[in-house]
Structures are given as structure tokens and as C-alpha cells.
């Protein structure tokens, strides 16, 4: 494995977004993974519709919460294609699901894996390099006050409550860390990103890790 790897260097990570006052992190995390893997496959990076996932992923609860795995199950089982964000813009509210015909263009998800990498974060690095950005669920209670730097304390691996997108890692410094894209806008954290120590399952980052296949 390379000592550091960042999918942003490959121009396949979309800009940080802002979920606003809506519990839609799970949708941002999944859509972030799908649009990046789509771009890794050679397509142009296109921002896909978070609102479509929010409105239509019926096993989740829209702005009241959800899980990335339930959204990915919905995508793979229904074969729904995600349309561009420009066609189905984000409203920060749960609305009526808008259906598109089968002939309408979009990005479909063929399969996904959801695995527990706790105690095996080096294997998780390999997974990231091989398959693209990963959708994970963490405990983010202390993130209310985060300004930047590498998180090493103040969170639990037993109370996951927030979905984010892991886009890289860096093991070259004194403290190896994961590079994580959040969906709280660019004024939060380090331009919308948070760094988390590698190796101790900090905040439960390795407990529920989803990779998508298109």
C-alpha cells in the first residue's frame, strides 16, 4: 500500500456539500461514494442527486435519518438510476419521490459490500485504494466543536450516529490518519473535512464500511 493515498488527487471527489437542517448524512455518504466510483470508471465526475435518495429510499426515514446500507440495498434491488443533482436538486426536506423512466440516463449501482474492518484498518486502506471512497458510519457527537486536526479522543465505537465518506489516508507523519469528507459545508472542520487517527477504530470508523460497485 502507498504510505499516503488521497482520491481527491485523482479528481474524482466532488466538492463538500451542506446537508443543512436535515438528517440526510446517510444519503450524502452513499451518493458521494457512487459518484466517485462512477468517475473512477472513466466517466466525468458528475454530482448525483442526494434528494432522489432522500425521497425514494423507502426503508430510510428521509430527513429523520437512515443507514447507508439500507440506501444501497434499495439502489441494488430496485435498479433505480441516480440522476444528476442538477435534475433533482437538494431541498433539505423530505419530499415526494420523483420517478424517472427506465430510459432516462443515470448511474445505477450493481452491488456493494458492507464489512467490519475493526482491528484491520490496514486492510481497510487496501479496500479504499482498490474500490474507491468508502461510506462509513461514526460517532460524531464531539464533532459539534471540531475545528481541525487529527481526532484521537472523545468519541466511541459503540454509538454510531453519523455517515460520512472516507476519501484517503496518510501514514507518513507521527499520527497516521484517515481523510474524511463531511456534509456540513466548507465552514465546518478543515474546509469541510475531518481527520481521524488510523489504527484504533476511532469513533467506530471501521465498524460498518460500505464500498460500491457499478
Amino acid at each position, binding site marked *: 500500500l502507498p504510505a499516503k493515498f488521497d482520491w481527491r488527487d485523482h479528481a474524482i471527489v466532488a466538492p463538500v456539500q451542506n446537508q443543512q437542517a436535515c438528517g440526510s448524512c446517510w444519503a450524502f455518504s452513499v451518493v458521494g461514494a457512487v459518484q466517485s466510483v462512477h468517475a473512477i470508471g472513466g466517466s466525468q465526475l458528475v454530482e448525483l442527486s442526494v434528494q432522489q435518495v432522500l425521497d425514494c429510499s423507502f426503508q430510510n426515514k428521509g430527513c429523520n435519518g437512515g443507514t447507508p446500507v439500507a440506501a444501497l440495498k434499495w439502489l441494488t434491488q430496485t435498479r433505480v438510476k441516480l440522476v444528476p443533482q442538477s435534475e433533482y436538486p437538494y431541498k433539505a426536506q423530505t419530499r415526494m419521490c420523483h420517478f424517472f423512466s427506465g430510459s432516462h440516463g443515470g448511474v445505477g449501482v450493481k452491488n456493494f459490500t*458492507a464489512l467490519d474492518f475493526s482491528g484491520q484498518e490496514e486492510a481497510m486502506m487496501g479496500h479504499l485504494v482498490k474500490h474507491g471512497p468508502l461510506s462509513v458510519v461514526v460517532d460524531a457527537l464531539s464533532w459539534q466543536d471540531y*475545528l481541525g486536526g487529527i481526532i484521537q479522543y472523545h468519541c466511541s465505537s459503540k454509538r454510531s450516529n453519523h455517515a460520512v465518506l472516507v476519501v484517503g489516508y496518510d501514514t507518513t507523519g507521527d499520527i497516521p490518519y484517515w481523510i474524511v469528507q463531511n456534509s456540513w459545508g466548507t465552514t*465546518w472542520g478543515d474546509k469541510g473535512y475531518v481527520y481521524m487517527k488510523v489504527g484504533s477504530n476511532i469513533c467506530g470508523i471501521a465498524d460498518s464500511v460500505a464500498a460500491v460497485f457499478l
Partner: protein
Amino acid sequence: WFRERFGRNYEVNSPQFDRRLFFFQESATRHAYLNSFSAASQSAKYGINQFSDLSQREFQDLYLRASADRAPAFSGQKAEG
């Protein structure tokens, strides 16, 4: 500074202002505690941001709405998933 920086328009000395000021002061106390764990330059820093006038309960209710599905442990098998 906080109200201007993050676009809060509640009036000074209104009930809403007093409530938000209370949560802001609680945040400041929390920041001191969170920052006391490590002084290393790379360590996380905690301080005033756009969530500093929310109570922890409000923050949880608004932003921490995901849950994790239990996933099988990675075993390195090629056919996994």
C-alpha cells in the same frame, strides 16, 4: 462576532438570545475540556463554529440521524460480498 460570522439574527436580550448565549457558554466550557487532552500540534482542536449556539441535544437531533447496520467482519476472502 459569532452572530455576524454565522448569520444569526436573534435580538440581543431577547429570550432566544439568552437561550443561545447559555448554550454558547456551555460550548466554551466544553471546548476547554476537549482541548485539554493533547497539546500536540497535529491533534484535533475544538472551538467556536457554526454549531456553538446549539445544545448537544439539538445538535444530535438535527445532525446525528444515521445508524450503522451490523456488518460481517472482513476476512480477506476474495468472494466477500
